[in-house]
């Protein structure tokens, strides 16, 4: 049974078996980890404290103050640092609340897909036999269906909303978790201390979640970052196509779609949300790469 060999991070003996405190000491020294981690932290804080940071209510419309340019344009308006959108809503506040939506969806979807993927991976890796074959078939089936198409079809049916997007993405982004967990479980399960635990009669759950899982935490962290970035961009694409987060919620993808008609004369309306998406996805990817360096010791 060959699953398409995706780039599963390698598992040298010592590095992953005991993720020591040394990890953090090394992490701090890792330049990209520091840089991208800081950005990610900043965005998360902005998302959490959005109500405090946003100068205005992101939903308050002021139709008389429409399409005001940001501060770097000469015709800007002092009280709106980044100008206003087509309905006169403060663009800075909407971008800040947009961070909250992107982070909620990213974390929600990734958490959900992690739970699904890891459980499937653990069960498949640990039991093997026909269970493994069945789960591997499910994984391959999932891999052979393009995510964005399925997500759009399902959301179009059920009716788009924030919660639906999280659930749909959560149900689609688990394949990497399953693949990595399955391979890692198979390797770890063969080790003596796991057979020892089994001999001592500890329960299955104990073995899976207390023995095996802690030791494959490192590669899973890497997969989590990749899927988070994936979720951010997928939500934005769904919202851009009108089948993700619905108005008036300030999702960056939706803001891009709303600004499409006025992008020729007020280009900042599409540059700003797009840039936020790019920075968030880039930061998450860089953290992922750094983690991959620090844990699996793989080449950069």
């Amino acid at each position: 049974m060959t699953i398409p060999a995706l780039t599963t991070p390698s598992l040298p003996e010592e590095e992953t078996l005991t993720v020591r405190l040394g990890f953090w000491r090394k992490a701090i020294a890792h330049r990209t980890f520091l840089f991208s981690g800081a950005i990610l932290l900043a965005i998360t804080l902005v998302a959490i404290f959005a109500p405090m940071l946003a100068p205005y209510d992101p939903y308050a419309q002021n139709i008389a103050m429409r399409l005001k340019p940001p501060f770097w344009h000469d015709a800007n308006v002092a009280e709106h640092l980044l100008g206003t959108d087509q309905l006169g809503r403060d663009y800075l506040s909407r971008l800040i609340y947009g961070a909250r939506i992107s982070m909620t969806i990213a974390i929600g979807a990734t958490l959900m897909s992690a739970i699904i993927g890891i459980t499937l991976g653990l069960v498949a890796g640990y039991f093997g036999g026909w269970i493994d074959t069945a789960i591997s078939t499910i994984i391959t089936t999932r891999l052979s269906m393009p995510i964005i198409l399925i997500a759009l079809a399902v959301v179009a049916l059920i009716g788009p909303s924030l919660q639906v997007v999280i659930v749909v993405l959560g149900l689609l982004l688990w394949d990497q978790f399953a693949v990595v967990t399955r391979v890692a479980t198979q390797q770890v399960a063969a080790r003596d201390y796991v057979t020892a635990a089994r001999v001592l009669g500890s329960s299955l759950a104990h073995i899976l979640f207390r023995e095996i899982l802690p030791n494959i935490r490192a590669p899973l962290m890497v997969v989590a970052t990749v899927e988070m970035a994936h979720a951010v961009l997928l939500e934005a694409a769904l919202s851009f196509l009108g089948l993700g987060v619905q108005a008036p919620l300030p999702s960056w993808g939706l803001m891009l779609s709303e600004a499409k008609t006025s992008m020729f004369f007020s280009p900042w309306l599409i540059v700003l949300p797009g840039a936020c998406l790019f920075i968030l996805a880039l930061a998450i990817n860089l953290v992922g790469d750094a983690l991959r360096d620090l844990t699996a010791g793989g080449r950069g």
Partner: protein
Amino acid sequence: MMEIRKFSRILGLCAALGASTAMAVPAYAGPEDQSITLGMGEDFPTLDGYINTARDGVVITMHIYDMLIYRNPKTFEYEPLLATSWERIDDRTIEFKLREGVTFHDGSPLTAEDVAFTYNYWADPANGARSQGSVSWIERAEVVDDYTVRVIAKGAAPAALEFVAGSLPIYPSDYFQSVGPEEFGQKPIGAGPYKVESFGDGLVKLVAYEGYYEGGAKRTPSIKTINWRIIPDTATRIAEVISGGVDWVWNIPSDQVEQLQAVPTLDVALASTLRIAMVALDAAGRTGADNPLTDVRVRQAVNHAIDRETIVANLVGGDGEILNAPCHPVQFGCDQSAAVIYEYNPEKAKELLAEAGYADGFSLKLGSYRDRSRAEAVQSYLAAIGINAELEMLQASASFSSWREGKVGAWYGDWGSFSLADSSASLGTMFDGSSNDGARDETVIQLIKEAGSVMDPEERKAKYAEAIRIITEKAYWVPMHTIVMGYAYTNALDFEPTLDELPRFYDASWK
């Protein structure tokens, strides 16, 4: 084994591909070869004028086919076209004298037999004419002689001539019968100024018909070829007109039109139209028998909640005006004074909601399509009084069918009345108990039926006024404003927008 030569050739190919296409010239010429490229919004499944009755469909029908008579866009008077003269024999019969020597695009002569066949075929509802209102008045058409035909209506049909001029194109009977309706829609033959050269893949290519007759109301076209490109996305259409990819676009939101004025190569226009915008409310309870909108107080609250002045001033632009009755003031029988007027008063709206038992508000689905800014503005006004409106922006036809199928409680749509200057095309088709009708108020339906089948103008006006009073009193709608059509086209083009929202490219020419 991969030779080095093979490998470098592949690399070279990719690079050449990239470079050679970088400086490509757009595929369509402009003034040089008397052709024009249009950026239109609606996708056509067919070119059959009786099926494709969406706005763009009515426009292209006018170019491919001719009707018996022609309504002058400025004076709204009827002028001869395929018919040189016509006469009302009695209440139900009109006789048309046809012009001789007129030929269809395939050269076959146009005779009374073609006219009769077309009317009789489409009068039969089983043949699936999309807007039944335009054909249901016809009982039958009879051939008197080769160039005389009589059209007999089922009853008094006051707006008959409006329909003959606006929505009844004449088809070649032999060709139509030989290929069948399906195929006819893909490869149509008409008697209009342009014939269809190709249709498919997002492009309809129309070429001027050399054999087009003289003396009719439509001039022989000076623009010889029309590349009718279908680009549904508004932003892409705007981009194409700015970059010269297309020469003419419409359906541009008004705030964009103001900004497009700054582009030196473009002329813009914000022309008022017969089109009326409204927030239709599901009074009949199609989205759910007990939904809040079935309560008149809730509907009145919605009327009070929306600040129509600000929307018209900022988002409609041009000479758009507020409407208080569900019809366009220019249309016969549309008496705005008969309507109950609801001033913008959110406090009163909240009181009414509380009175109706929805103090902490409720949520509903708001469908819309044409202009996202206006839709979100209405959404926020409703939110201000506690109504959580979930906005669903779709393509025009999808949004329209979501209203007809009762999937949305409120629908911020618009209705062009097929550019017919008679209330029967607005009031008459939106409150006649059909799928457009969100109220299904029996008395209103009855009033409209009577107003549509009596000849005396005073009596018709009285009945429409009564219908308007009931509709606005029961607040079945929130009549919003007239729609202003945004045009943008290269300043090398000589083009005049018209009130009936039917751009005539056979009248346009290159400067």
